[in-house]
């Protein structure tokens, strides 16, 4: 309940929350540090830190490349956990880990949860772990007050949404459309209808990411979702303009 409460409390103060994403070790932990500082300083409400994996099947080309470059630079799971601990201790916002299930599985489910807990991590996003495969793990996470954050897709039926909600905690991540990360979606009635279905399915906060570029995109979500997710846009920004561009970008969104 820790993460859900934190977000709901913050939400009372803002029309919409912002969650940002980064790939750990890309381009380096040092740059990660500078980016996170700017994110926090500019009012980000929650940060999703991706532990890189060699086979990120649900990610698009930008995040895929970041995963590979990070691994090529020698990033380890242990270093990611330590970095997460450092961040959670430094800033007063929720930090989440996002990764693929094999990282958790290979580390050991229980051992991973203990390490994440010790690091002060409050939620986990594992896109290739549906509740059919990870129900027990999700229970173990909740028992440790680490929120298992589940993803709902436009293809999910109402029944499926309810089922997912039954396992989820912290918030619900609404995938805005089919496809992998990093592509722009279209607004429109179909999309709003989908968000309305999500809203009916859960009392948890709703996070939505769809390739947000600017303030207008964020504004379009107000009243329809609780949190806008900035994904691969930050990575591209850092690649193209350097880490110092992140702060102004975040500041411009809301």
């Amino acid at each position, binding site marked *: 309940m820790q993460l859900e409460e934190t977000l709901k409390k913050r939400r009372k103060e803002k029309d919409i929350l912002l969650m940002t994403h980064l790939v750990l070790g890309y381009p380096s932990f040092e740059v990660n540090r500078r980016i996170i500082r700017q994110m926090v300083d500019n009012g980000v409400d929650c940060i999703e830190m991706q532990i890189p*994996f*060699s*086979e*990120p*099947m*649900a990610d*698009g*080309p930008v995040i*895929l*490349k970041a995963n*590979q470059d990070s*691994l090529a630079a020698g990033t*380890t*799971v242990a270093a990611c956990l330590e970095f997460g601990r450092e961040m959670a201790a430094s800033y007063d916002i929720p930090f989440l880990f996002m990764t*693929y*299930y*094999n*990282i958790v*599985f*290979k*580390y050991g489910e229980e051992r991973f949860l203990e390490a994440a807990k010790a690091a002060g991590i409050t939620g986990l996003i594992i*896109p*290739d*772990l*549906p509740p*059919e*495969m990870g129900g027990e793990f999700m229970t173990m996470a909740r028992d440790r007050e680490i929120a298992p954050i*589940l*993803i*709902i*897709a*436009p*293809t*999910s*039926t109402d029944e*499926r949404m309810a089922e*997912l909600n039954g396992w989820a905690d912290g918030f619900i991540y609404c*995938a805005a459309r*089919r*496809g*992998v990360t990093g*592509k722009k979606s279209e607004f429109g009635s179909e999309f709003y209808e989908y968000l309305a279905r999500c809203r009916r399915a859960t009392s948890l906060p709703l996070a939505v990411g769809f390739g947000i570029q600017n303030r207008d995109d964020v504004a379009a979500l107000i009243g329809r979702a609780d949190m806008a997710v900035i994904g691969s846009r930050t990575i591209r920004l850092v690649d193209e303009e350097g880490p110092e561009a992140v702060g102004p970008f975040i500041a411009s969104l809301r």
Partner: protein
Amino acid sequence: GFFGHWGGAYIPEVLHQTFRQLQEEYDKARQDPSFWQEYTALMANYSCRPTPLTYAANLSRHFGGAQIYIKREDLNHTGAHKANNVMGQGLLVQRMGKKRVIAETGAGQHGMATATMAAKFGFACTIYMGEVDVRRQRPNVFWMEKMGATVVPVKDGSRTLKDAINEAFRDWVTNLDDTHYVFGTACGPAPFPEMVSWFQSIIGREAARQIVEQHGRLPARVYACVGGGSNAMGVFQGFLNDDVELVGVEAGGHGLDSGLHAARLCGRDASPGVAQGYKTMFLQNDDGQMLETHSVAAGLDYVGVSPILSDLADKKRVRFESATDSEVIAALDLTMRLEGIIPALESSHAFVQAFKEASDLPNNAAIIINMSGRGDKDIFTIAHAFDDPSWKEFIIARADEYRK
């Protein structure tokens, strides 16, 4: 979708409904006897099934032990057992009303087979292939394109098979309404391992009937190479409930201690993991990152293995061995000279192990080697492996013509 500890469907939520539909369609097909009839009729008319079980008199005499029989999947249309799987999935796609298929390919044979199936069924077709493999396997790319498929070179990761699989999944989650992902082997999320194995079981059903007709009784052993494991699953299923020893042969590459191999079930370098949508033994490091693999046979050069085979390994129902690159070339050489048959480099792995063991068996015993495909498509690799000087001269002369 689990086999012992292995298998499952570790898939993004966006694919949930798609897999449900696939599972339902597959379940319906399995329960509908007319489906299997339609499938076997299609394979008989389009792909020369049943393929023969060729008695290898000369090899048998050479080794002086068991009678050696070769199941001839090389005689399928497109030259390999891959045809069985794609045509079966083609029928399912037709039933689901989808209009586009995608596939990954390593050596190019599954891509060839899928492009062929797509042409036959009138589907649009995109094939994902690691950029390295595109370069290695240009002839296959040429044919796929000629059959109307779009071949997309994948430039991520190691730019080989596993990366092509990831990329195909990315396509699928984007285009799931009209698109079916024709998975190429008995791996991936459920129901693929079981479904692909089911289509491939046509091999074992035929072989079991044929060996009894020709040899009078069941074989002592059955050998198959194991990459993803579909040809092995195909032939093994004909004998799972019988007193027949089943032997899977993995790619030993430069040797199990070299780090340059693709042995998941018989080496010491693999460990349990979850990737590409399923749980099995993977070649990965301590952090769970996948390792690069090596084999002279592109089709065996893969980090994972069928979860059904991992389970059969646990249960000791299948024995796993490995063959090194150099053993493979020697076995290929012998088979060509003595029988006039050219096994694919992949299939040659099974021949290696059979040759190691044939002379230990009595004359009245039979063994079956599953020849998963033909080797003449591997001319660029095999001529290279034999270091044939005339071949090199030929290629250089051709290039000189093209440079003009």
